[in-house]
């Protein structure tokens, strides 16, 4: 099971469940599992988040694989100026 941590306001949406263990195999799968558990997350995930998998930050990478023992952080998306 990948350990998934929701950073910032996202934890509020899951009623404080900031850390979850989920058997997600990809970012897309992860979003699916999260939305099933907490439907209110769907909007935030769509509005734009970044996903850090084992320290590597990914943005807009639905197909990126997640390993069974990965450490995943869902963080606000970043761009810059």
């Amino acid at each position, binding site marked *: 099971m990948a350990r998934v*941590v929701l*950073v*910032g*306001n996202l934890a*509020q949406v899951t009623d404080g469940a900031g850390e979850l263990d989920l058997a997600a195999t990809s970012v897309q799968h992860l979003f699916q599992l999260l939305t099933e558990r907490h439907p209110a997350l769907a909007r935030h995930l*769509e*509005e*734009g988040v970044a996903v*850090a998998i*084992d*320290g*590597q*930050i*990914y*943005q*807009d*990478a639905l197909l*990126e694989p997640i390993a069974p023992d990965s*450490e995943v*952080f869902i*963080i*606000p*998306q*970043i*761009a*810059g*100026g």
Partner: protein
Amino acid sequence: MQAKTSAALPQSYVGTRTVRPDGVDKVTGRARFGADFNLPGQLVGRVLRSPHAHARILSIDTSKAERLPGVKAVVTRDDFPDQSSEFIPAGEMMMNYRDVVRNVMAREKALYEGHAVAAVAATSTAVARRALKLIDVQYEVLPHVIDVVDAMKPEAPLLHEDLYTAGVEPKPERPSNIAKRVEIGHGDIEAGFARADVIVEREFSTQPVHQGYIEPHAALASVSEDGAVELWCTTQGHFIVRAHCARLLGLDIGKVRVTASEIGGGFGGKTVVYLEPLAVALSRKAKRPVKLVMSREEVFKASGPTSGARIKVKLGATKAGKFTGAFAELKYQAGAFQGSPVQPGTMCAFAPYDIEHVKVIGYDVVSNRPKVAAYRAPGAPISEFAVESVVDELAKKLEIDPVELRLQNAAREGTKAAYGPKFGPIGLIDTLHAVEKTNHYTTPLEEWQGRGVASGFWFNIGGETCASLTVNEDGTVSLMAGTPDIGGLRASLAMVAADELGVPYDKVRPIIGDTGSVGYNFLTGGSRSAFSGSMAVVEAAKQIKADLCTRAAKLWELAPDQVAFENGHVKPVGDTNGRHKPVSVADLAKVAGKTGGPIGGVGRINAQGAGPSFGTHLVDVEVDPETGRVTILRYTMAQDAGRAIHPSYVEGQYQGGAAQGIGWALNEEYIYGADGKLQNAGFLDYRMPVASDVPMIDAIIVEVPNPRHPYGVRGVGETPIVPPMAAIANAIENATGIRFTELPMSPPKVLKALKERGLNGVKA
């Protein structure tokens, strides 16, 4: 690289200082920037802007203007369909289309002085100006609020009746100007502070500052009778402009073709639309090309600066110097619509450090000033100014050298970042050491002189990128990228292409393609263009090399695995080595048509793996006790570039960002009157650094390769603006013993503080 053989090897360009291929046009005045384009029959566009900081728009009567001879089109809110609330995934500067359409053209209210209310297209500037005067707008002037703390008060004038603070449970009963509350952190800060031997707690305030690009916004639109749009504009992202114009005006994206002109500076401020949808709407109505250019006054009054803010920082450490707990509260102005960079501000605040217990809270607050736009590492310079000042104060209290204190707590590979994930290989420590080792660090100082140091961070991004390489019949290579070149990109990409294909640098001709010619590219920003562009170029080159090998193998009647590409040539390898002379890219290009058709490759990627760039700045200042003027005596900076494709342009990013930070620290600010109107909307009184304000800036390139990029590249453009304000505040404290917590530290403020302590007067 290989050992030299008898065949002349192509030179390796990455890491050298080539002359940029677009340079000659820029030093001769030939290069065409936004306002340099003209079309036959074009009309002059002008925008009518609200004179009030906050007002309900009761009515807009354009009839007299429309009847004026020479006026060919007038547009108002009625020409822009309303947009439902929809957040655009656009990075940290949350944008909502409902707000975008209102910022482009005011609807129910004018929310800042300068807010666009109507626009005209006419046969001459004089007619356009007269037409604006004939537009009758009835306003109901409302009380306004400018300051962020004032805007947060419950009794503050309300900008949006439907704005309820997000991120707060339960949802507030009443609307307010606080759009959002955000929070990040880990651990237990109470426990962290309990363990501290020394705690420093400080409040800071900063003012909005403008990106200050020398080239005002400009757009030229031509809409044909079938609704197809051609648009030339100065922008950091022509694909973004295309998307916004299509959305706001109900057009198919494919029917809008946007060409990015050369861009005269952006720094984040040209990642949004202002004039472009107006130009398209006017041209569509007038059936003629319409050109709109902002005056400098309009740039200040109607385009987004970055936030002003109030910041609280509390940092605790043991006697030995280990940080035990860190807290910050950030209140950022978003301007008239929500979307300040407070979120990245929270994430970056303590990013350089390994701290077990961290909590950062942020508030996004609207007020009656232009909607903020991104400005180089949005949000980070503000929060890190405050944190790096407190780190310095802590160092003084602990009697530990400020660089040593940072080294002790520095984030390194494997450190859990304040915003969650662990860092990969990073160069913060290398930059601290680099600065410590300089002669600058130990040069003695005189009276009224002081030295300060500060570090900084930006995440950097990758993003969607397309780049194509085409091998021409004579072996020269055409490179088409899709991210506007702000300063050196074409050179860098051409160097990578030259190295990948083994062709001379001057045989690679790079251009930036328009939206119809190259696939989707996210904008130039986020320190991504060289990082992502070079990745796409490598991919395109890979395709070409594979293709060349296939063709050569077939020509030689060899199996595919019996040939290989090396140093710009395809040659037989293994058993067949030496059977045929190697053929060059140019040789194969000559027979391209006969061996299958044109030779080319396209890299189409969503670049991932951007590596953060850390930097450390060291500055010496001299304070004049008679005038309060702070002079920058000496400036040294070290920053991690991963791998510098073109060292001169990497240094250029470092020096330019530092200079902007110097302006932010010492002079730049928006000055509003009690009437909510901007008083310094020009370069005379919005005082940016000039050549006599700064010394040479020693830029040290540190290279800790980014393992996820083929050349090890990290973005570098944004980090340089993060450390300067704190470094300078720390240097002023070192010189005077006075800790300044308000930016800018301009002469009147410095003099006042000196007077309060009886320190002012003519220098002995």
